[in-house]
């Protein structure tokens, strides 16, 4: 019975994410002419502006959708970058000569210890605000956790029979890594990426909320929350929508990540 509940949440999360992607891809295109200030400010939901307009008379649906696009863009780019760096560093940590591997893993540990998004704030602080710096800063903050995971996984795979057998047959290290190591990692990395993706989207929104992320007029969920705070007394709904869509996205990603992990590891499923 418990198992079914986990599966239900997993599929609920998958369903929500599919809808979100469709929303993020179609809506900015379908309603792009609503993105600039057009209507009366702060009108309620109606036939033209489905969720009403914000304090500058811009369509909230269009802004939410564009914000979703930004979030997904930042999330996926950062995940791809951090996976690439993390896998590279993790594999090098095991297979490279000690004078490369050991310092690399110490660097990873050091960066991992750096609290949360503090490093991203520092990078943005001395570089610049905007979409590109945010992506780079978050990727630099995100890779150490991937690298540590890859390092421990690779270190244990290296001692398995199939690996030793292939090595004994004369396979070279690059071949071994691509054919005998990486294929085993995809599942674990998928599960971790889903949860990390939630963290990245959250971090992007937090930076935008602080006013040092994606800059106006580009909408982001974080900056929409921040803008809506100023007159939430008269327009609480304007605050509700971005909060809702952000929270739901985070929940969905966590459910999906947990689901993937449970599928990979039958033991954790029975424990829950």
């Amino acid at each position, binding site marked *: 019975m418990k198992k079914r509940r986990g599966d239900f949440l997993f599929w609920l999360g998958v369903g929500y994410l599919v809808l979100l992607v469709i929303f993020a891809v179609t809506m900015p295109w379908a309603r792009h002419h609503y993105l600039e200030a057009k209507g009366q400010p702060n009108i309620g939901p109606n036939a033209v502006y489905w969720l009403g307009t914000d304090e500058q008379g811009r369509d909230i649906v269009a802004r939410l959708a564009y914000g979703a696009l930004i979030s997904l863009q930042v999330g996926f780019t950062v995940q791809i970058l951090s996976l690439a760096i993390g896998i590279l560093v993790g594999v090098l940590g095991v297979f490279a000569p000690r004078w490369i591997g050991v310092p690399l893993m110490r660097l990873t540990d050091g960066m991992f210890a750096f609290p*949360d998004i*503090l490093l991203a*704030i*520092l990078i*943005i*602080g001395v570089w610049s605000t905007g979409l590109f710096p945010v992506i780079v800063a978050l990727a630099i903050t995100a890779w150490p956790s991937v690298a540590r995971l890859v390092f421990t996984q690779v270190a244990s795979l290296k001692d398995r029979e199939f690996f030793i057998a292939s090595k004994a047959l004369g396979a070279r290290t690059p071949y071994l890594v691509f054919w005998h190591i990486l294929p085993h990692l995809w599942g674990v990395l998928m599960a971790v990426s889903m949860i990390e993706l939630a963290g990245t989207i959250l971090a992007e929104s*937090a930076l935008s909320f602080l006013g*040092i992320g994606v800059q106006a007029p580009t909408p982001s969920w974080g900056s929409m929350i921040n803008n809506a*705070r100023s007159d939430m007394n008269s327009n609480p709904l304007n605050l509700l929508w971005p909060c809702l869509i952000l*929270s739901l996205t985070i929940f969905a990603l966590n459910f999906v990540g947990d689901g993937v992990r449970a599928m990979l590891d039958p033991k954790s499923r029975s424990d829950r």
Partner: protein
Amino acid sequence: MQLLKQILLRLSFGVVSLLFISFVTFVADEVAPGDAATIQAGEKARAEDVEALRRRMGLDRPWPIRYVEFVGNAVRLDFGNSYTGAREPVSKIILRGLSMTLRVASLAILLAAGLGILLGTIAAVRQNRFADRAVLTLSTLGVTVPNFVLAPVLVYIFALQLDVLPQTWEVNRVAPDFYYLLLPVVILALRPMAMLTRLTRASVVDTMQQEFVRLAVAKGVPPLRLVFKHVLRNALLPVVTAIGTSFGFLLTGSFIVERAFVIPGLGREAIEAIQKRDTPVIQATVLLAGALFILVNLLVDLLLPLLDPRIREAQV
């Protein structure tokens, strides 16, 4: 002897991490456009004047020398002057913010640790009953819902609708500080609290299955005494370590909370400095936050042997 060796090892780890953070912040200034000389010379200065000033300020020396100097100054909390405004010394700005941030953060960690351990223990003792499920659901929410969503929502409910708490921090406060700090502290505490709750629960559940607890039950130890004296004393060690790590969440969380409630703390100074591209202030705030994080974790590590005789006596 063993213990002393270990303390020294931990201390040296702490020093190395601090040096790493200081190096990152130093490099940050190196790659940032403009330096103290360009700022001090002003916008209309000629290139050769800036160059002369740079030489006088010693900014033309090779970077390893300047890094050593940077660390030496940083130890004395001397980060030069702010690039903007009244060119105040950076140390004055950050010390002002630091006292406020530490006040909020320490209240939050007290709340998080106290409630987290209490709720986690209750959940573990009532395992799989209603109280357990309620606590687990709430802590999942606490970990997942971002604090910058929670802050405006709680302000809307408690300040605007119910009108029982002030909306933001104010310079002229009419009520005791407690009322102004209540919402920020609760919001800041929520995420570490949820983490500590889950950890305490897992740890207590684990400990309760051990033999010495069964022996204590068989002996007829009263339930409260059992939980506090026998179980918690053993179960709390990983929780104490986690209090140290959750301090990192508090630091970044305070950036959010200070913006949401207009509290003049370290985080708000940092964000303002970033928006004004005031590099010395950014460096100082990040360095200080990182140093605080490392020091707190170091303290926790050093505290552990005091709590656990096993670590004190036998460890490598």
